[in-house]
């Protein structure tokens, strides 16, 4: 403000306009951006804390390592995010993931077929399971958690049918490149993850189909009455989730160079918690890909950090549980403010 003690009409107008600007300023758009920023800030804060207590964290090698670990989970969370946006939930991703890796493992080790076939078969299997889940939700109108919980068991059955309980191992290098290869000095899974994140981002933001996903989540009836083919939207959402879960499984087993029965199970709950931590609402219609990335990163960074700090894995579960709750709470609180 100008430093003359009797404000001229000029400065008065200036102040008024300033106030008006401020009023405009704390409106929706700016706020939403601010909220995104809050989450990123939280993540950065976390990183800072860890760095202070252990320098190794900030080393490029470690950051890459974190991203590489996160890639599989993020890929799965993306699919979950799409499902969450439709107002549903997919409890089957874990076992679909196992199926994906089991199928690829089967084709790679038990048949002489080239690895692309294995890849395609795995993705196909995942998508198919997703489709069934979607049909159960959209056509039979089962509540999503119930339908997908059923699919979880179906998935278990399938993967056991494929490989019993002896893991497949020793895959060809071309296939393993998916998991351990490097491109321009960056691990290949990270590339895959980045590409998928971009694609899904564009899909959700800039395509009619993506918009239908949001609409369906926001209000199914209205969506139907607005000429959106809700059934198709739902089914394809679950199919996408299945597809991505299978892909995640493929990448994981390509890194592991082996498949076992429990390969996917541990990924289910983080895949749900992640997006929600990142700000995707479980009622549907609100959120986006960014949420799944940030959420997943928060969790991976946390685990990585705790390992760096040598916190016993016995207590890590506790910390993660706590952080999940707090993060979501913060998110809810901030949303309420707007």
């Amino acid at each position, binding site marked *: 403000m100008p430093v003359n003690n009797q404000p001229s009409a000029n400065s008065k107008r200036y102040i008024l306009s300033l106030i008006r600007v401020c009023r405009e300023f704390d409106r929706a758009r700016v706020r939403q951006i601010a909220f995104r920023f809050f989450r990123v800030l939280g993540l950065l804060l976390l990183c800072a804390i860890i760095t202070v207590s252990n320098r190794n964290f900030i080393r490029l090698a470690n950051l890459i390592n974190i991203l590489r670990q996160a890639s599989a989970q993020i890929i799965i969370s993306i699919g979950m995010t799409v499902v969450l946006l439709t107002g549903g939930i997919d409890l089957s991703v874990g076992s679909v993931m196992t199926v994906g890796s089991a199928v690829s493992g089967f084709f790679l080790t038990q048949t002489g077929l080239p690895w692309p076939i294995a890849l395609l078969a795995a993705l196909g299997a995942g998508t198919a399971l997703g489709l069934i889940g979607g049909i159960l939700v959209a056509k039979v109108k089962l509540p999503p958690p119930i339908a997908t919980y059923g699919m979880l068991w179906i998935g278990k059955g399938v993967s056991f049918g494929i490989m019993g309980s002896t893991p497949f191992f020793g895959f060809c290098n071309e296939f393993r490149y998916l998991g351990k290869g490097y491109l321009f000095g960056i691990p290949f899974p990270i590339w895959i993850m980045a590409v998928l994140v971009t694609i899904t981002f564009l899909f959700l933001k*800039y395509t*009619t189909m993506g918009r239908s996903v949001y609409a369906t989540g926001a*209000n199914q009836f*209205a*969506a139907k009455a*607005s*000429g*959106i083919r809700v059934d198709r939207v739902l089914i394809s959402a679950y199919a996408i989730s299945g597809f991505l879960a299978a892909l995640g499984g493929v990448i994981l087993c390509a890194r592991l160079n082996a498949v076992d029965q429990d390969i996917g199970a541990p990924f289910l709950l983080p895949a749900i918690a992640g997006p929600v931590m990142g700000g995707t609402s479980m009622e549907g*219609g609100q959120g986006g890909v960014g949420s799944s990335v940030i959420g997943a990163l928060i969790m991976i960074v946390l685990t990585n950090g705790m390992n760096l700090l040598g916190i016993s894995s016995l207590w890590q579960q506790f910390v993660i549980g706590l952080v999940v709750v707090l993060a979501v709470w913060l998110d809810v609180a901030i949303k309420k403010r*707007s």
Partner: protein
Amino acid sequence: MKADRENRPLLQLLGINKAFPGVQALKKVDFELRPGEVHVLVGENGAGKSTLMKVIAGAHTKDSGRILIDGQEQRQWGPRVSRSKGVAMVYQEFTLVPFRSVAENIFLGREKLKTRVFLDKVKMYREASDQLVSIGIDLDVRLPVMDLGVGEQQMVEIAKALALNGRILVLDEPTSALTVPEIELLFQVIRRLRSKGVGIIYISHRMEEIAQIGDRVTVLRDGEYIGTRNVSEVQLDQIVVMMVGREINNLFSRSFCEPGDVALRVKGLRDGRRLKDVSLEVRHGEVVGLAGLIGSGRTELARAVFGLDTLLSGSIELFGKSVAKSNPPGSLALGVGLLPEDRKRDGLFPILPLKHNVSICSLRSMFRSGFINPKVEQSLAKEYIDKLQIQPSDIERQVKYLSGGNQQKVVIAKWLAVGPKVLIFDEPTRGIDVGAKTEIHCLMNQLVNAGHAILMISSELPEILGMSDRIYVMYEGRIVAEYPQGTGAELIMRSAMGFN
């Protein structure tokens, strides 16, 4: 004795203020309710009626101001206190638990117990049915509410409120979903209660009801207290003026034009439930009114034509070409729009921003490639927001923060954006303030003049009479009569109620 009961108000609100993030919902509102009076509260949507009611009920806490019951100031005021002081609310949205029995709903929160712990179901059932009988309803109180019709649910709602033996009964648009006989019944109940000295706050949009039932009327506008009048001493249009703050000389201004050829023709529609052999036709450039009581099958007809519900038999013909099986996407493509009756449920995406609500239907036709160009979308949204003067015009604002009238406009905008040739308006102005009403009517004018065909379903006879070129009347799932423009209300009412 009686005198001083008369002049000591049951309830007084002095200088009530209430703000929500972004809006000042109530500004220094005064209100007073005497025993044994029906005090009608009117005002446009967003005028703050509902907020005021919620404050009275204790559901909202006031920011400042005083609440007096029987002249004593109430320091802490919440749901429990207000109930204990005898405030009984009947909300616009039903507050019933769908899966539970009528009795349980009526006694929710005041269950009858035996031995202090266990529910006394027998007693509850008995008293519940007594309660219903006392307002002239006969229901099996064991039925789950979800198995009742809307009207019945409304009655349960009222019975629930009355069961409190409240001294202050608040009715928020009680008649919006009721059929004519049910409304009559409701009014009887209200009169009975008034004679018992109960104070009744009656919120309504239906001008005629003020005269029918009201003793005094208070007007709110934009959260401000405008004034209170005795109904006996005031003209309706004066009230309208107070409400909208400007003169509205003619509610229904229709400029009629020459109808073109048939746009929509349906023959012998049956859905196996409500619709029994419905046939009608709508021409380009005309508004066809569809009158009839609630439950006569009007809404079902609209939904069936648009393809939301499935048909058993019958044919739909659009612009001379017959439609094999109508479904929403198909109707959309062919240029048929449905403004649904249940706006909140079928029309809006509350958490989506305004612009997305407006554009949602037109995306597919606008962006054939499937890729959205945000700029184009925004300009579209802006265009229709200006056209319909939707307030506030912030395209990023979530529509759940808009007032009822503006929400309705959003739904209309959504359909206009598609540019449909045939529009089905189901209760286009229900629960909308006078101002918005006229705007919407003008809009319908423009549309028909531009050659669109409109099928308008409405429970408000004046609207039907004022707006339509032709009038069909439905009764029990059939079209029982067709009248030309300018037919008398009684005639239509008679056929709507099945006298022929």
